[in-house]
């Protein structure tokens, strides 16, 4: 199928291939061009009418028309919603001061890099993966870093105790300070710029910049207003198709089925966006649906590579393989004798074989899984 495609961008800069926090970028070795997903010429050469800075403001489904923010309209045969998610802002006093940012765009990352360095203090609100990546980046830029987390441990919603403890000590050993179980009630400022974070216990922690990483909400308003089915995101099927057969939704905005877990949910990851792009493209061009998938993601902090496959839904047992003290280990989450998820630290074989086992639903021998002297290939055989 050969058609005209149009891509209208909501964010100011071109999409990058993930949060631009790579070491190369921190050291100033990667410029905006190298972070862009594709060079601008790519779009013209491939018949893609790329319109940065234009937002879609309304869908008129009965006429198959999109109304744009510049007042113009577009007709479509097939429409793909890839509107993403936006960071939750904290509904507290001072949240709009300069120097407080979410880290979702290249512009945020540039602002952060400009605001901190040696002698400066960075406050990170939220001890999830984003918060920890930012903390590591802050230390790499030479800043003092304090992470504020509402729960009693890091990664409370997503990781088990062993992994939480590991990340805490790894970061502490590299100079990051944690305030756990604390409630942020406001930001203080000087001349319109953030100067401190106020806690419920009355303390004010001084800072020169603050990053808020407390989760994100799907940008599904356009879809909801047009009457498409939504539920914590735009509801789609295995072809990434919404309740309107001519409209697809992919990436962070989609609430999608995941057959291996027999449920639907919304994910925020690069592999998820790629997978759904393949699903939609296959359906639109009449090709077979992509093969079954195991969702996965990764996080880089310092010299640690964390690779995660699956989600620990309904898991009833945790198997630890390797010693966290060596910074090379994996945490397996099992439901009965089936693997649901694995978190692998500097352990690619555990990640790669784990991903295959999650997808195959094959029974796993827990004793062998826990024994690092037996290779993962043998465990999975």
């Amino acid at each position, binding site marked *: 199928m050969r058609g005209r495609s149009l891509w209208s961008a909501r964010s100011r800069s071109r999409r990058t291939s993930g949060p631009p926090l790579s070491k190369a970028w921190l050291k100033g070795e990667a410029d905006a*061009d*190298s972070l862009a997903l*594709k060079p601008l010429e790519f779009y013209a050469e491939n018949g893609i009418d790329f319109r940065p800075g234009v937002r879609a403001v309304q869908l008129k489904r009965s006429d198959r028309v999109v109304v744009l923010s510049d007042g113009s309209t577009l007709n479509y045969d097939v429409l793909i919603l890839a509107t993403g998610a936006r960071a939750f802002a904290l509904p507290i006093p001072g949240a709009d001061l300069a120097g407080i940012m979410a880290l979702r765009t290249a512009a945020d990352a540039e602002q952060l890099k400009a605001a901190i360095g040696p002698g400066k203090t960075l406050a990170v609100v939220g001890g999830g993966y984003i918060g920890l990546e930012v903390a590591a980046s802050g230390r790499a830029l030479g800043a003092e870093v304090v992470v504020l987390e509402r729960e009693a441990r890091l990664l409370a919603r997503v990781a088990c105790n062993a992994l939480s403890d590991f990340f805490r000590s790894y970061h502490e050993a590299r100079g990051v300070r944690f305030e756990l179980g604390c409630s942020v009630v406001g930001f203080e400022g000087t001349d319109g710029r953030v100067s401190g974070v106020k806690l419920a216990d009355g303390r004010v922690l001084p800072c020169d910049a603050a990053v808020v990483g407390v989760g994100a909400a799907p940008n599904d308003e356009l879809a909801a207003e047009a009457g498409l089915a939504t539920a914590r995101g735009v509801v789609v099927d295995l072809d990434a198709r919404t309740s309107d057969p001519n409209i697809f939704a992919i990436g962070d905005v989609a609430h999608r089925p995941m057959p291996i877990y027999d449920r639907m949910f919304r994910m925020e990851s690069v592999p998820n966006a790629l997978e759904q792009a393949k699903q939609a493209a296959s359906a639109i061009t009449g090709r077979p649906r992509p093969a079954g998938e195991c969702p996965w993601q*990764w996080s880089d902090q310092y010299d640690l*590579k964390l690779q995660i496959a699956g989600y620990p839904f309904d898991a009833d047992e945790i198997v630890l393989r390797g010693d966290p003290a060596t910074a090379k280990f994996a945490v397996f989450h099992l439901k009965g004798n089936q693997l649901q998820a694995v978190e692998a630290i500097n352990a*690619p*074989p555990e990640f*790669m*074989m784990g991903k295959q086992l999650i997808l195959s639903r094959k029974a796993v021998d827990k004793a062998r899984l826990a024994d690092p002297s037996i290779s993962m290939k043998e465990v999975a055989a």
Partner: protein
Amino acid sequence: MAKITYIEHDGTEHVIDVKNGLSVMEGAVKNNIPGIDADCGGACACATCHVYVDEAFLAKTGTRSAMEESMLDFAEGVEENSRLSCQIKVSDDLDGLIVRMPESQH
């Protein structure tokens, strides 16, 4: 800047000028060359940018890191000259580099 020749598994050649500092993977992805998936965008986390480096350039492209070695172990059809192209940084030294792609990245 280096001129790099990417050869797909079916023999189709693509000759591209790639800027210094980019990876061999990025040179392919930004120019829409099929055969290098690079699902993780260059984090050495997925092993889907596997290439075979032309023998003449093996020394110049350097050696595999432990992480790369470990990820390559799970790629299909790995040979002595296999590399993850996200781990090869482009410089003037690599002008004329030829890389060939495997049949599949998965």
